[in-house]
């Protein structure tokens, strides 16, 4: 007779992890950091035609402390980059980041003095949804990929360091 050895309780912990993953993926509280044109497609995806509520992601939380997924929607300029970093830092673990639109993935076609060439130089990103702007079907595809990632409980990608131009 002894105490229960926690390390031998693999069956329960895997089932518990699976349950937590299932619960987390269907209750996504997003923080929509909307700046530009992609915001219109974000609004269209969130509304009746291409409903995002059926995936459990229908309630935007406008405070970083209450949200767990940061949707970065639209071009990020160098002026607002510190604000984005601050919002990301204020979010509590576990948190995920979705780069919505090609301006956030790589900078889009705005290769100039004012645009951040991809937000993955500032904050780590989990799902990239390219498109200018992406169709709502693309957004839902990205959301499902994010849900798969959340369910598995994978760790976030590290900050991507762009290779130096040669």
């Amino acid at each position, binding site marked *: 007779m002894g105490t229960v050895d926690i390390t031998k309780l693999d069956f329960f912990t895997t089932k518990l992890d699976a349950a937590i993953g299932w619960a987390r993926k269907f209750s996504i509280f997003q923080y929509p*950091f909307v700046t530009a*044109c992609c915001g219109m497609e974000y609004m269209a995806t969130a509304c009746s035609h291409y409903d995002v509520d059926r995936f459990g992601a229908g309630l935007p939380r406008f405070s970083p402390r209450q949200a767990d997924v940061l949707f970065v929607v639209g071009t990020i300029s160098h002026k607002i980059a510190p*604000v984005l970093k601050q919002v990301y830092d204020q979010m509590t673990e576990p948190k995920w980041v979705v780069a919505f639109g090609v301006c956030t993935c790589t900078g889009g076609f705005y290769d100039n003095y004012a645009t951040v060439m991809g937000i993955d130089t500032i904050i780590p990103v989990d799902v990239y949804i390219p498109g200018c702007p992406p169709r709502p079907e693309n957004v839902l595809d990205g959301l499902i990929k994010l849900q798969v990632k959340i369910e598995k409980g994978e760790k976030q990608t590290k900050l991507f360091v762009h290779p130096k131009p040669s």
Partner: protein
Amino acid sequence: MEKLAEEIQRTGKAETRTLLLNVGPSHPAMHGVIRIVVELDGETVTGADAEIGYLHRGFEKMCEVGPYNNAIPYTDRLNYVSPLINNVGYCMAVEKLLGIETTERCDYIRVIMSEISRITDHLTCIGASAMELGAFTVFLYMIKAREFLWELVEAVTGARLTISYSRVGGVKADLPEGFKEKVAPTFKEVRSILKEVDKLLTRNRIFVDRMKGVGVISKEDAVSYGITGPFLRATGVDYDVRRSQPYLVYDQFDFDIPIAEGGDNLDRYLVRMEEMEQSMRIVEQAFSKIPGGAVMVDERGNEIPADFMVDEAKMGRTAGFKQKTVRMDPTLEGTSGDRHPLINAPEKKIVLPPKEDTYGNIEGLMDHFKLVMVGHGIRPPKGEAYQAVEGANGELGFYVVSNGSDRPYRVRVRPPCFPIMNALPALLIGGMMADIVPTFGSVNMIAGELDR
């Protein structure tokens, strides 16, 4: 705290200070990134300052980098809720600089698409500002109506939002077959949705109380700030570029310009609702007057599919292509050769030839080469031109300077909501904290246009 209590007991007064509150760049109002710093005395606003530039994407510098037609996708993203109006404005400015005339059918098509864009802009503005006041259903209805209109836009241009439809000298493709039959039921739906929203909002006690008498601006102030558009028309000045300096074919349509007296938020809402109805009237009249129409295709020989023509042409087997008609892919509807002269100006040095000519005969290929290859392209003479169109927020002006080369030397956009944002701090002072949201919503600030 004890000292404060003593002071109040002693003198009956207490010294207060104002609070500086930062309605930060990332905020729940749906209109874009802007920072408003307000100075509050309790709930009353005693000072305000707006800081913009969080979406500055260098539009004017990017336009100087590529040839003239390359600037069109950048103009799409200026006022991204009514992108067709920006495209048309830029192309008209370059055409004015070149000194060419577009065909009549192209003008009618541009008018139709501009008015549909204007309706989507007003739908988004009213929907978003109603949602910020708590009327979430209105937002869903408006977005539903906007989706129907976006389906129309997609049938014509191929994309929902960033369409790049207009070109210098014409438009990309003609209207598809059966477009007129698609428009009529869509407008019927939009009208019924607008009627429902009207029932929900216009005489709603809560909505009216929050919007009436809030954000008032006088006529003289609005003119002095340079404000145009629905904001100005709600104060009583009837300035609309379509009526005062008609461009395209607006002088042939019978439409009204809604004006309100008062200059507060409720008037701006009513002006926008009425303008949507007038836009639908214009589109219906345009369909009855448009020249050209469904083109009867002559069967001068056998019909061949387009990709067959391209493949054969690339291998040099172009004998007889000039006499054959080409069946295009349904997604490229409206771009076939017989519709081309209807919608594009007859200038071979400015407009690309139809693909049947490019692949079919040597003259078409040379014309195409001379417009597309690096080193060639549209070359307007040295000069400058300013063209104003009526955007959804006011007068959208494009000032283009050329130095004779194939790239624009300077492209300047006069953003319609820039002067309105200039006036915003003056509108907020004296009101309450909760009035910031409806006033800011009725400004319809689009960050892409404000910051470029």
